[in-house]
């Protein structure tokens, strides 16, 4: 009898030791175009838009964590609660959140990796070190990260992206872009850029874009290099300034001013758009697509 009790205790201990995580599967009704706020400190958050008027959360979370899923009419909250002192050792949550496609989504994390797809409402993301990957149809996107990389694919959007050391990569078919990093690299590919403002301190900036008529694009870097690739039929005034970096015109634009040493003023076509690129020591290169 004693042996059975001992063996049972050992089995229980073994079972408890193995089960460090628990499954979650919860669902709550939500309006078609309501607000959804998602917060998870560590692990991963995958967000998918769907056609149902509900928010569903599935996944696995650490044994000591708690999932809070609540709706108060317009707003739905998805929160992974960590213990009092936010001790995230050995504890993380990997959740998949399905929500109405037109929801206004706000996601906050420290180090969880974030993926979102099939969303058409506004999206706002704040991360410290978690990576952010968005493949969405939203018209309004705002992503902030410190060291997490940002990768964003959108169709037609107003995009704001800010990172410190994370790299930022944006693919947008048509849009206005405001992007800033300190040391992270910035890469933008756009079919039709209606406006842009890109700044970095030491990150490199690589733009492969088609400028919409009347587009104003400002790119500034201190020591990062700037590469701008434009279609040969572009119509734009292009002003380059580099204090000590080099400037190369490989797009065949005509020089209209500047000494060529620190300033180079160029024109392509009839100059319908305006591009200004400024660096301190970074090199500037214009290329043809």
């Amino acid at each position, binding site marked *: 009898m004693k042996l059975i009790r001992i063996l049972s205790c050992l089995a229980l201990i073994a079972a408890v030791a193995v089960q460090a995580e628990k499954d979650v599967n919860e669902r709550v009704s939500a309006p078609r175009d309501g607000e959804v706020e998602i917060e998870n400190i560590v692990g*991963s958050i995958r967000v998918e838009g769907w056609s149902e008027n509900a928010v569903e959360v599935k996944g696995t979370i650490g044994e000591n964590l708690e999932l809070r899923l609540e709706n108060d009419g317009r707003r739905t909250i998805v929160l992974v609660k960590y213990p009092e002192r*936010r001790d995230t050792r050995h504890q993380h949550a990997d959740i998949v959140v399905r929500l109405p496609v037109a929801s206004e989504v706000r996601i906050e994390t*420290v180090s969880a*990796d974030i993926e979102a797809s099939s969303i058409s409402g506004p999206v706002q993301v704040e991360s*410290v*070190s978690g*990576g952010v990957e968005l493949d969405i149809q939203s018209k309004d996107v705002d992503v902030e990260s*410190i*060291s997490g990389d940002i990768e964003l694919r959108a169709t037609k959007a107003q995009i704001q992206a800010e990172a*410190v*050391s994370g790299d930022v990569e944006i693919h947008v078919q048509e849009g206005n872009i405001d992007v800033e990093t*300190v*040391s992270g690299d910035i890469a933008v590919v756009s079919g039709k850029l209606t406006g842009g403002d890109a*700044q970095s*301190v*030491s990150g490199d900036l690589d733009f492969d874009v088609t400028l919409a008529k009347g587009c104003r694009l400002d790119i*500034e870097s*201190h*020591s990062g290099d700037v590469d701008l690739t434009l279609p040969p039929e572009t119509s734009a005034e292009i002003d380059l*300034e580099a*204090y000590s970096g080099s400037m190369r015109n490989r797009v065949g634009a005509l020089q209209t001013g500047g000494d060529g040493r620190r300033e180079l003023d160029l024109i392509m076509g009839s100059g319908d758009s305006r591009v200004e690129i*400024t660096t*301190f*020591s970074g090199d500037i290169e214009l290329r043809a697509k």
Partner: protein
Amino acid sequence: MSCENVRRWLEFDDADETDALRVGEHLERCVDCQAFAAMSDPATSLPATSLPDDISPPADLWPQIEAKIQAERVVGPTFDASKHPGRDWQQAASILTAVAAIIFLAVVIRSTVAPVATESMARFDEPNVESELAAAIEQECRGVMRELSLAPGLGVVDPRTVALEAEAREVELAIADTRLAIERDGEEPKMMASLARLCRVRLRLTEHAQELARS
């Protein structure tokens, strides 16, 4: 990441180290790949464990550290947060609000005020309001940064704060480069505007570090 790619990463020399995070995540979940890693783990010989974990630093290192510690003490008046619990955050917040107000004012003034003639402006053909305001912003930023850096308890040392400090050092190098160029070539408006921008970036990094320390 697929099992095939994870195993390739573990086995081939040319793997991209930046994929380590994704490989790690996969390994945490995939029992098959865990088994693969365990089987192929070259743990049977661990040459590194034979190396000493203690190596005497140069004898003159401590005096250098001591000198830096003493130099830090001489920076200026320090704010004793222990006498004013909670006050350091309030002070930081009020300083940041003041800076924000100055920057806002700068933007408003730039769009409405008439050019003001000064000795430096006389060198330029165009009105130089932007240059003066950029100089004012830079001065204010520096003042704020100095005050923030003196207030204790603002930087809990965690690895992410350390990373932000390194970013701040890069920005400070950029500020130093720009100031040197301005001293050499004069207060060209674009250069002044770049300087102001860099100071604002520097300030934002301090704000990020504070937020991390609070979280």
